[in-house]
């Protein structure tokens, strides 16, 4: 499988529309009467919508889909599914059902579609959910993803913007998959680097979310298309600031190397344009700046929790085999929203 088709034109989360462009359009949409059961919706730029059904139960609703970022259809299906499912974990919820979203050229070999869907189906099963249907249309290019429904207890759900001064920031996956996939697209990625990136992208955030359960998580989001700094900016939400230590970031070394060779995406530059004004770099090498803006497909969870609880959560995450690290601290709002120093 995998065929002679040139699959990827720069897919995955590098295909997202820029944040600024999106905001511009979204701001103008009509809102309708406010529904008090909508716990998290449009107004906060969160990972998923959360709608209360009862005091103990709320529905988590989210969707993600994109063009391929790898050549192998089965792997693409796995990654796209893991990416879509991730938002439920970022809310602290569990996956219940998923619907396929498919765009596929009529002239392409149907076996390719079969492999994509097989990858997605297996990932949904791994997440403990059920694939209940989907919708496909003919299109000039392949796109795939899921619409996902999950459950969460409203008392325990994680918003993405309620971090508090004094919190420690933990990231559970390495950064740099966008750059590695990009380098791969132009034939300049080391085979091992690509395999490691794929392993990272196909890993569900389910384990990371489960590790968080015993702790007082104040805020949580998953790092995807807007890059680490973009999602961190959403977490700060204009009411807190933070300090990031670049040398502590879990990154793929190859991503730093390829960034230094300027194998960068348009989406990465859009992220820099949008989030850059909120960031001050101090002594950080160019390649690391790029990795921090790099759009991640199916990235890790970014967690804010009290500093005194961080070492134990970190221990649990690492014991579970995740490349997690404490990367910074939240403080009260100041002139600079995100300060990134090398050390």
């Amino acid at each position, binding site marked *: 499988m995998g065929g002679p088709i040139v699959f990827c034109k720069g897919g995955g989360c590098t295909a997202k529309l820029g944040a600024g462009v999106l905001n511009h359009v979204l701001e103008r949409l009509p809102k309708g009467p406010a529904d008090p059961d909508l716990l998290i919706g449009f107004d906060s730029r969160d990972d998923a919508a959360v709608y209360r059904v009862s005091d103990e139960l709320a529905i988590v609703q989210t969707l993600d889909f994109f063009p391929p970022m790898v050549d192998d259809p089965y792997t693409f299906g796995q990654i796209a599914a893991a990416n879509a499912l991730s938002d439920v974990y970022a809310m602290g919820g569990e996956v219940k059902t998923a619907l396929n979203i498919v765009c596929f050229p009529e002239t392409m070999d149907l076996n390719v579609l079969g492999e994509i869907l097989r990858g997605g189906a297996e990932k949904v099963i791994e997440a403990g959910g059920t694939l209940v249907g989907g919708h496909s249309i003919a299109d000039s290019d392949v796109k795939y993803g899921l619409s996902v429904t999950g459950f969460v207890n409203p008392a325990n759900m994680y918003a993405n913007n309620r971090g508090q001064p004094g919190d420690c920031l933990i990231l559970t996956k390495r950064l740099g998959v966008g750059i590695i996939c990009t380098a791969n697209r132009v034939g300049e990625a080391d085979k091992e680097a690509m395999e490691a990136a794929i392993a990272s992208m196909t890993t569900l955030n389910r384990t990371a979310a489960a590790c968080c359960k015993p702790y007082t998580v104040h805020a949580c989001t998953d790092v995807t298309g807007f890059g680490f700094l973009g999602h961190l900016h959403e977490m700060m939400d204009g009411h807190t600031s933070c300090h990031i230590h670049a040398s502590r970031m879990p990154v793929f070394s190859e991503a730093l190397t390829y960034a*230094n060779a300027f194998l960068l*995406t348009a989406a990465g530059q859009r992220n820099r344009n949008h989030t850059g004004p909120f960031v001050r770099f101090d002594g950080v*090498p160019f390649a690391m700046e790029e990795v921090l803006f790099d759009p991640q497909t199916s990235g890790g969870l970014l967690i804010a929790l009290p500093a005194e609880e961080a070492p134990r959560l970190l221990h649990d995450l690492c014991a579970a085999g995740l490349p997690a690290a404490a990367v910074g601290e939240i403080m009260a709002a100041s002139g600079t929203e995100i300060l990134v120093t090398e050390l």
Partner: protein
Amino acid sequence: MIQVNAIGDTCPIPVVKTKQAIQALGGAGVVQTLVDNEIAVQNLTKMAQQKGYGVTAQKLEERKFQVTMTVGENAANLHAEQETLCQPRPASGAEKTVVVIAAATMGAGDDALGKTLMKGFLYALGQQDRLPETILLYNGGAVLACEGSVSLEDLQSMEARGVEILTCGTCLNFYGLTEKLKVGGITNMYTIVEKMTQADRTIQP
């Protein structure tokens, strides 16, 4: 002057084509690249600024931008052909040995002797039957992976035989050597700690 047509190309292809044209210059000169969007202009400009090339950009018409890069004498000399990005790995299953090069000299006492000893060490390391999995270079050791290092060939030879060579990015930045890295890749403290703690054995001359 070399002209590059990158209309219709998605990033990073405009950069890749431009880099190829710059190499073809074989020294100082001008490369003019055509792209169809602002973001590509920004990515090309970023590269030029990092490399120290002169760069100007102008919009010729809707969806047609021209980026002109001037490679000067100094920049041409610094332009590293460090695109040896594919590193085959040594066979796994064996004990994982990581060599840590924390200084440009080996041992304390006389620095000139220390430099000679380090050169000897890296040479002899490459002659062993079993090569290390990884060589980490930081602080004073970073210079050994850069242009002008007497150990460059020894390191490059080991890299060609599957040894992973990683130099600390912070240190390269501190010493102003980022553009002069000639072997292996760049890494950060997180990975340095990870490599050291996961090694079966670390060797530090």
